[in-house]
């Protein structure tokens, strides 16, 4: 449904954009808010995201990505750019990497997404818990290596090594 709506957005269909907004904005705001911790800034990012969707929906290729992947990636990238633009402002009250599970599933929840998710969880479980914790925290909060190392309390080199080894192991596990 989202794929079809995005195709209609590419044809400048306002109602289709409204449909996409209605079904994805709460999820995307959650994702952005987690990175920026500032509602006003997060809603500005969201506005920008949907304007980009409006102007660039023709770049979405359902053969290459699922619609929710495309949208979440777009939103995360904008939020991370905004976070980087803030510079070195000290973040306080950094939460634990473990998030509350979401009651509402992803808008595009597909059966295969559940299977993919189980596979990802299986591969994450094979990592050292400290390493998989760092991977999750990095994804949720969009922190640089530097900020991540500080938040977790390990040297920068250790954090780089944890994340890079984790990514290499994950790739091997997920491709297996």
């Amino acid at each position: 449904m989202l794929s079809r709506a995005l195709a209609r957005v590419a044809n400048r269909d306002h109602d289709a954009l409204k449909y996409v907004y209605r079904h994805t904005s709460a999820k995307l705001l959650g994702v952005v808010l987690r990175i920026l911790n500032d509602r006003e800034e997060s809603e500005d990012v969201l506005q920008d995201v949907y304007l980009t969707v409006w102007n660039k929906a023709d770049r979405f290729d359902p053969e290459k990505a699922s619609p929710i992947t495309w949208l979440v990636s777009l939103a995360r990238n904008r939020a991370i750019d905004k976070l980087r633009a803030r510079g070195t402002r000290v973040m306080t009250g950094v939460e634990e990497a473990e998030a509350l599970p979401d009651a509402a599933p992803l808008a595009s929840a597909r059966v295969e997404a559940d299977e993919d998710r189980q596979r990802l969880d299986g591969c994450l479980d094979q990592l050292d818990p400290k390493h998989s914790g760092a991977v999750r925290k990095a994804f949720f909060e969009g922190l640089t290596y530097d900020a991540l190392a500080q938040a977790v309390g390990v040297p920068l080199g250790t954090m780089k090594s944890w994340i890079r080894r984790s990514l290499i192991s994950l790739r091997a596990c997920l491709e297996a």
Partner: protein
Amino acid sequence: MTDATDIPPEGEERPLAGEYVLGVLAADERAEAERRIVAEPAFARSVAWWEERLTLLAADIPSATPSEGLWPRIQNLIVEPLKPSAWNSVNLWRGVAAGALALAAASVVIAVLPRPAAPPIVAPSPAKPQAAEVALIADPTSNKPMVVATLDHATDQVMLTPMDMKMPQGRDAELWIIPEGQKAISLGVIPTDAPKRIPMPEGLRGAGTYTALLAVTDEPIGGSPTGVATGSVRAAGKFLKG
């Protein structure tokens, strides 16, 4: 930042695409990764591969309902957008200009509207005519004038006086001049609540100005990032020869 641990484990490449998707790269490394996404299809595929997998983690993030005002804000920004290709359509501009001119003809009174105090100017060169031409830059649908532009030959400047110019929240007003048969040239972002003087671009300081169209579009804060209008035409109009 380079230290010993930047060297990847023996025989393994740095998983840069994964690092980019995870979001651990600093701003400069992100920019470089984004350049490679555009330039290197293999790297772009690798990024897409990671996105398709890591994005599944987003299911763990609690949703948050946006404020009620957000959708109307977005909707306001997408109303009647003009694709850049439409920008150079001569017919479109002719149509818009005709409307503005019709209104201008019926509103000669506009020329005697009080003008805000002009900043001091250098003594005008006597060779140049002193006449000022007026352009009404009006809303293309309602024909309501939004800005009055007065051409000052003495200084080759355009004096802009906003009348009733409103931009959608979070958007700036950008002024364009479109010489007949040519592409739009940006004259920059203009204030919506205060007069401003803008120097005419070189090469547009002659008779060509009279046939050029002036238009205002709404653009991201700071003006169009591309040099081409991306927003809607909010107002347009031509000069009336004095």
